[in-house]
């Protein structure tokens, strides 16, 4: 095939893709003359070029299409049918072009069928006539069956271009002809005008249409076509250059005062610029990958009988063409999925109050050296139940495992191989290409895919991919004496572990975790993962943690050392080693040594199967809630003796350190000026050393305007731990003892100290409430700790408190005729939980109208809503003491007002 033809094919294919998009736009906005002009011009150019190259079949078809579009320009109303016919013509043109590409010749056959419809439409003043004859658009672009090989005389109206008609055209002539078209596209204008009698193109419009191409040609002349192979080769060479530069830099690094230093610096800069330049040549707007989508969505919309809008933004976002190739198919597949499974039928949509037209949004943007692509629909969202069922059926998981998984993790099963929740296989999706293929393609290029879904609101897929594959920045780390590269794309931050720093590795049932900004981060030791761990101490407090994020999964990779970051040239893993999922490739470092590139995806799956997951967003919140329902934040301190003491962190107002010389003593009491007031100090135990100089730590408790300071020897730590309290407290001021971090720890009773200082602490409150008789309060909580902790608080607030350790006991008390003014109940309790308790209370005669306040460590909008539904009047977080008091005050005031 000669170069001219090849170039024609490339250009025409591009033009046709544009026509596809423009036509779909045009159909939605038929009055937009600009779009019509664009389409018209493109088809016209195709027709013209076909004429020059001697491709009669194509030319005839393009001509018929152009004629019909000419009618539109004259003001004939545009119908969906007409657009469908034109789209089918374009499909046919594509099919012919495909054949032309394969064989170098126009396939034998004719397009009478289409041309007739097109002509009929252009002739009929109304365009409705030919609808029934519309050939079905073949999106597969199958080659048209070679019909009777008659070169029918359907081209007779093209009298004007006769001299360029088929037959044998020499290459010279072709080239000359082509040059003319290229440099002087204006020449095309007369052709239109000469045809004007038939088409009646108003002069003004024609000239407007022709003026634009001139500008475009000028732009076209400043660009050239370069074959992809050439670019690939350049890229490889630049990669090698980068490597060599790195090697030189490494050598010079060892020679302090080398004369090479300056020229090398220059070389380094030039290399960097060259690398950037070559990268740029490979960049293409992502719009190229989704150019076909409007057409696909239009066809789907017709096929599925669902009106669908496609919104695209960020089409100009550029990325490496190699990456582009990889994501083209996944994107198309996902849009199909959204249209087919995601969006409801118009009837369903209207029934649930959604707009009839479904919406699919596609957006792309740069973020931190990577590209984020989002595909979202406003459809029904993923069906959790279906996914669970399917996951069990297909044996991907077991019932027991499923129990432990968060919803977010369950949704992810749709990425498992052979997984499709579509009940029936439609012609649109369910073609055997599942989301697993999508995920594989994306992971292949070092990307990740994540999803968010809300029932009835739609689904959003987020794809993160690197800008380029060839050269990636990586973090060079060391584990068990070997160096490895971790692509920086996945790295969120680095945390240094030290024995005395705030970041320490802790163990939960042999699983190492790191507390990082109030989140538990699962950790994995790289050396263990790679089978190189000498069963080393899992909590060894040295090294670094590479905090990594893969598809919403956060985890830390523990390494022994971190060196530096380096632009590495990725070389594929040897086939022999490709089965090792922990590595994605190899690279040669500046010093010439080979190191392995860690595949964060491989590590993530290893982490996922070993450790509890800490996930972002909803899943993470759920996990955190689940933890906090069992965990309590405790402040550990020492005061008198070595045994640690603890107090719930939430009860403490502030932690302070005071200079002991500022402590004033009067009549046996220690006071200190604190925030403009005198604050009384109490020692936790008589053995607490009262220092004579230096600083002493202090726990400050406040209530209203009054504060007391609790002197301690040392603040040890803040831990989150399960509180199993043995309440048998022998000593005063102690609630009980608990095992915290493996040590017996006394949990102190704050209220004891409060009343010690302010003897009127309780008394005064009573006055505040101002009721002659104390209100009766029922406090239900299964935790002895909370009963002991809160009872004094509630008493202090002026209530007569009766506590019950279970809902059934509480209920028995109510039924026994004990009249309560207000009830405070825990939510999470064995047997009967708080919700059931409240519902039951609502049905008793005794407590139908008694206000109930829920007290729970599980505070979420959903839980609060549920609480309200069950009959709670208020919902307070377990450690929110001021909140609880405020709620109590509120309710009692209401009662007074009612009374």
């Amino acid at each position, binding site marked *: 095939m000669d170069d001219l033809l090849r170039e024609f094919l490339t250009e025409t294919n591009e033009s046709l893709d544009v026509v596809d998009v423009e036509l779909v736009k045009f159909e939605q906005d038929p009055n937009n003359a600009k779009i019509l002009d664009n389409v018209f011009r493109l088809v016209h150019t195709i027709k013209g070029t076909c004429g020059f190259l001697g491709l009669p079949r194509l030319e005839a078809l393009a001509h018929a299409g152009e004629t019909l579009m000419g009618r539109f320009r004259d003001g004939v109303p545009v119908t969906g049918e007409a657009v469908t016919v034109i789209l089918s013509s374009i499909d046919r043109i594509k099919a012919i072009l495909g054949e032309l590409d394969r064989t170098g010749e126009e396939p034998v056959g004719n397009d009478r069928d289409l041309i007739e419809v097109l002509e009929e439409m252009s002739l009929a003043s109304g365009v409705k006539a030919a609808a029934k004859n519309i050939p079905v658009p073949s999106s597969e672009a199958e080659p048209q069956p070679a019909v009777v090989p008659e070169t029918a005389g359907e081209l007779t109206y093209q009298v004007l271009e006769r001299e360029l008609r088929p037959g044998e055209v020499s290459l010279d002539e072709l080239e000359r002809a082509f040059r003319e078209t290229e440099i002087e596209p204006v020449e095309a204008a007369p052709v239109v005008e000469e045809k004007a009698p038939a088409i009646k193109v108003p002069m003004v419009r024609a000239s407007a249409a022709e003026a634009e191409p001139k500008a475009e040609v000028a732009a076209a002349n400043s660009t050239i076509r370069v074959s992809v192979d050439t670019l690939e080769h350049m890229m490889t060479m630049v990669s*090698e250059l980068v*490597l060599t530069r790195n090697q030189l830099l490494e050598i010079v690094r060892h020679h302090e005062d080398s004369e090479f230093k300056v020229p090398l610096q220059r070389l380094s800069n030039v290399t960097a610029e060259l690398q950037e330049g070559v990268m740029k040549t490979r960049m293409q707007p992502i719009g190229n990958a989704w150019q076909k989508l409007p057409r696909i969505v239009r066809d789907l919309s017709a096929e599925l009988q669902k009106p669908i809008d496609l919104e695209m933004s960020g089409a100009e976002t550029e990325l490496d063409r190699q990456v582009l190739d990889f994501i083209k198919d996944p994107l198309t597949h996902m849009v199909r999925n959204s249209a087919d499974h995601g969006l409801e039928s118009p009837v369903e949509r209207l029934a649930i109050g959604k707009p009839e037209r479904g919406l699919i949004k596609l957006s792309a943007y740069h973020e931190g050296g990577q590209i984020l692509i989002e595909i979202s629909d406003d459809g029904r969202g993923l069906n959790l139940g279906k996914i669970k069922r399917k996951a069990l059926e297909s044996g991907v998981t077991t019932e027991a495992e499923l129990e432990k998984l968060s919803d977010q993790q369950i949704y992810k099963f749709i990425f498992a191989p052979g997984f499709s929740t579509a009940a029936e296989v439609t012609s649109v999706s369910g073609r055997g290409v599942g989301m697993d293929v999508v995920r594989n393609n994306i992971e292949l290029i070092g990307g990740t895919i994540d999803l968010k879904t809300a029932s009835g609101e739609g689904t959003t897929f987020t794809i993160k991919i690197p800008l380029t594959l060839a050269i990636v920045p990586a973090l060079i780390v060391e584990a068990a004496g*070997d160096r490895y590269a971790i692509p920086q794309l996945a790295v969120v931050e680095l945390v240094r572990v030290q024995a005395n720093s705030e970041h320490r590795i802790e163990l939960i049932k042999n699983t190492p975790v790191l507390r990082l900004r109030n989140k538990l981060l699962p950790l994995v030791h790289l050396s263990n993962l*790679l*089978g*190189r761990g000498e069963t080393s101490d899992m909590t060894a407090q040295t090294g670094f943690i590479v905090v990594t994020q893969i598809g919403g999964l956060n985890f830390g990779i523990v390494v022994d050392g971190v060196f530096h970051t380096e632009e590495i040239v990725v*070389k594929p893993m*040897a*086939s*022999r*080693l490709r089965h*090792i999922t*922990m*590595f994605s490739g*190899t690279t*040669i470092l500046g010093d*010439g*040594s*080979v*190191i*392995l590139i860690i595949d964060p995806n491989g590590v993530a799956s290893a982490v996922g199967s070993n450790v509890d997951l800490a996930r972002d967003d909803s899943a993470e919140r759920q996990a955190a809630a689940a933890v906090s329902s069992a965990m309590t934040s405790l402040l550990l301190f020492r005061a008198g003796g070595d045994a640690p003491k603890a107090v719930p962190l939430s009860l403490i107002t502030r932690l302070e350190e005071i200079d002991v010389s500022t402590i004033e003593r009067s009549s046996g009491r220690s006071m200190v000026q604190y925030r403009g007031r005198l604050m009384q100090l109490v020692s936790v135990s008589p053995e607490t050393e009262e220092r004579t100089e230096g600083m002493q730590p202090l726990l400050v408790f406040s209530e209203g305007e009054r504060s007391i300071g609790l002197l301690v020897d040392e603040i040890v730590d803040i831990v989150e731990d399960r509180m199993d309290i043995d309440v048998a407290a022998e000593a005063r001021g102690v609630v009980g003892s608990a095992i915290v971090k493996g040590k017996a720890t006394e949990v102190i009773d704050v209220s004891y100290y409060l009343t010690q200082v302010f003897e009127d602490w309780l008394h005064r409150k009573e006055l505040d409430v101002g009721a002659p008789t104390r209100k009766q309060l029922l406090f239900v909580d299964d935790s002895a700790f909370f009963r002991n902790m809160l009872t004094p608080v509630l008493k202090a607030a002026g209530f007569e408190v009766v506590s019950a350790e279970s809902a059934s006991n509480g209920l028995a008390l109510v039924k026994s005729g004990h009249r309560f003014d207000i009830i405070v109940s825990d939510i999470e309790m064995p047997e009967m939980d708080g919700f059931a308790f409240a519902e039951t209370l609502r049905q008793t005669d005794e407590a139908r109208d008694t206000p109930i306040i829920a007290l729970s460590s599980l505070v979420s909008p959903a839980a609060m809503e549920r609480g309200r539904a069950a009959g709670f009047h208020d919902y307070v977080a377990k450690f929110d003491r001021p909140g609880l008091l405020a709620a109590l005050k509120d309710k009692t005031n209401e009662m007074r007002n009612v009374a």
Partner: protein
Amino acid sequence: MSGQELEVDFVTVMIGDQLFGLPIGRVHDVFVPERLTRVPLAAPEVSGVLNLRGRIVTALDMRTVLGLPPREDGAPLMAVGIEAKGEAFGLLIDSVGEVTKLSMSEMEAAPANLDTRWARVADGVYRLDGRLLVILNVDQVLGTEQELAAA
């Protein structure tokens, strides 16, 4: 000479106490392996990967392939570079000897009672004066254990 007496040049190498031969056509180069990077989780015979003039070479230890005891520390080490399916491999051996031209017709089948690990990679045996030369089948050597198990 009667007919085409097919002669092949073999590169001879020592692995343990045994002399082996590799058809010279398959030998890309001979080099001293340096800065071998271990590959965790890889098959035992993969001693690592290394950089040979900008290419990544996968090194296979022939001693492991043949079930011989590991080399002592500091013992001499050489590698024979092999190209297969566009990838570079290095077979780690103890030392390289001369190139010997031998007639194909004189090659004898490996004895039936040969250790299976050897039998898998041996094409045949030559009786040289005083010692035996085992001819290695390069493709068999590069074949993975999994492939072997599957066969």
